[in-house]
């Protein structure tokens, strides 16, 4: 009987729940805002790591709002939070959303802290480039001071995920937690806190905890490894061990993006530059089944 149960359990498809307005998905960013995030990103990425990562998440939020927009308005397929950790640990949204731990995407769309006018170079259709003014909504600003209280941030993530799952959506696609950091935890070994996050589960699977290490190092980024054999140090191996395996549809998306993704690949990136960070977020937040 036991073996039959095990066999049946093994055949239950996880990470396949439909994401809908009635059963939305929670995406939570844990964003390292320690002093070292004020260092240059280096390589071909100008500016500080904190500025670059803030731009990338603001643009990700912008794209999410567009993705969820329909004729009648924005459909709340997702609720999103950004928890910063550095000198303080807490919600990072500015403007009307200040203090909000999670906000539905319709509220995010209509409440940027401000809309900046930026320029981007686009093709002029004759082989040249011209500058074009584009609107750039900003929901939160970069910060870089203090230590790296990763354990505390993971504790916040567990609290929010637990409340989401137990109080609201026990059958939803599991919450996705993306931890973006450039350094080692300064409030202890985060392994147990990470395990506590991953142990929160809906009927569709455990919370997905993905870790992305951003770096000024010029070494090539390592993304979605299946084991820790090629990782350079103890710190990288620690973040790898904290990371969830990629569900099948995300692994397929990563392969489609040109990543070498083996069986058992984890949602982990090391030495990421701006391009690798954007690709990582694209894969790690890819819905499998949006209604």
């Amino acid at each position, binding site marked *: 009987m036991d073996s039959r149960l095990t066999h049946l359990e093994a055949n239950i498809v996880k990470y396949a729940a439909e994401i809908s307005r*009635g059963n939305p998905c929670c995406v939570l960013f844990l964003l390292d805002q320690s002093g070292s995030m004020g260092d240059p990103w280096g390589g071909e990425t100008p500016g500080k790591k904190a500025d670059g990562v803030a731009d990338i998440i603001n643009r990700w939020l912008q794209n999410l*709002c567009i993705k969820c927009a329909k*004729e009648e*308005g924005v459909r709340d397929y997702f609720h999103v939070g950004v928890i910063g950790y550095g000198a303080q640990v807490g919600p990072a949204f500015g403007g009307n959303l200040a203090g909000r731990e999670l906000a539905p995407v319709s509220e995010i769309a209509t409440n940027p802290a401000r*809309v900046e006018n930026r320029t981007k170079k686009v093709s002029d259709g004759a082989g040249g480039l011209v500058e074009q003014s584009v609107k750039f909504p900003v929901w939160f600003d970069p910060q870089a001071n203090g230590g790296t209280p990763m354990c505390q941030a993971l504790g916040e993530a567990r609290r929010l995920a637990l409340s989401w799952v137990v109080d609201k959506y026990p059958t939803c696609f599991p919450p996705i937690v993306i931890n973006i950091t450039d350094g080692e935890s300064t409030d202890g070994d985060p392994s147990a806190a990470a395990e506590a996050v991953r142990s929160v589960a809906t009927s569709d699977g455990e919370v997905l905890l993905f870790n992305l290490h951003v770096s000024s190092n010029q070494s090539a980024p390592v993304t979605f490894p299946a084991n820790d054999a090629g990782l350079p140090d103890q710190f990288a191996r620690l973040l790898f061990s904290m990371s969830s395996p990629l569900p099948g549809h995300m692994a397929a998306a990563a392969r489609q993006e040109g990543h070498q993704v083996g069986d058992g690949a984890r949602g982990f990136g090391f030495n990421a530059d701006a391009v690798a960070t954007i690709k990582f977020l694209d894969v790690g937040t890819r819905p499998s089944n*949006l*209604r």
Partner: protein
Amino acid sequence: MRVSLNSYWTPKAGNQDDEYEDAFAPDSQPAPDAGAYRFAVADGATEASYSRSWAELLVHGAVDGTLDLTDPSSLSALQREWDARVAPLSLPWFAEEKARQGAYAALVVLELRDTPTRHWRASAVGDSCLFHLRAGNLQTSYPMRHAADFGISPYLIGSRCVGREVAERLEAPASDAWEPGDEFLLMSDALACWFLTETEAGRCPAESIAHLADPNNSTPFREWVESLRQSHNLRNDDTTLLRIAATQ
């Protein structure tokens, strides 16, 4: 030549009727002895906005002859019409960007003629399908031939794409002779995938579909679709079926 049409549709479970983004045409019984009849089903993409409007333009264009998929330049007039519907709207930043990206839809078109000979012709872009049945047996499956052919991201006709792209992705048109009593089924992708899965398993899905049109049938289409969804045999998607019977 006489042709009878049964049309069925339902939105995704959990959505309202006005959120249905497939489209079909015609929506009434064709007049007898017209010599030529056209039918179309389009499946508007959930990820885009104003998809229903685009899907409706495509099916009506295909049926009234404005659109000929083998001549992609005929798309331009429909694209201008879609743009004219969307452009005057005052939209917030996210909706404006979404509309700028355009709407997308799959389309399958069937034309039946009885002159000079009884023949049919079909064209398609994407994964909406035609099945030609004779005495309940599947003669032709177009453009998808196997359940495994259904991918997550089929090529779709864009309201802002250039005709050349559509020409490159147009499935090779299919054609054949028809005989009185033949049936043609046009379906959007979820039901078409179910139909091929059942066929490959050695079952006869055409019988279930024929039963829908039986006057003694007590299970309406929506109830039947819901039971297939509940048993995980049908993906939760907008679902459309046209059943066309050529009787003489």
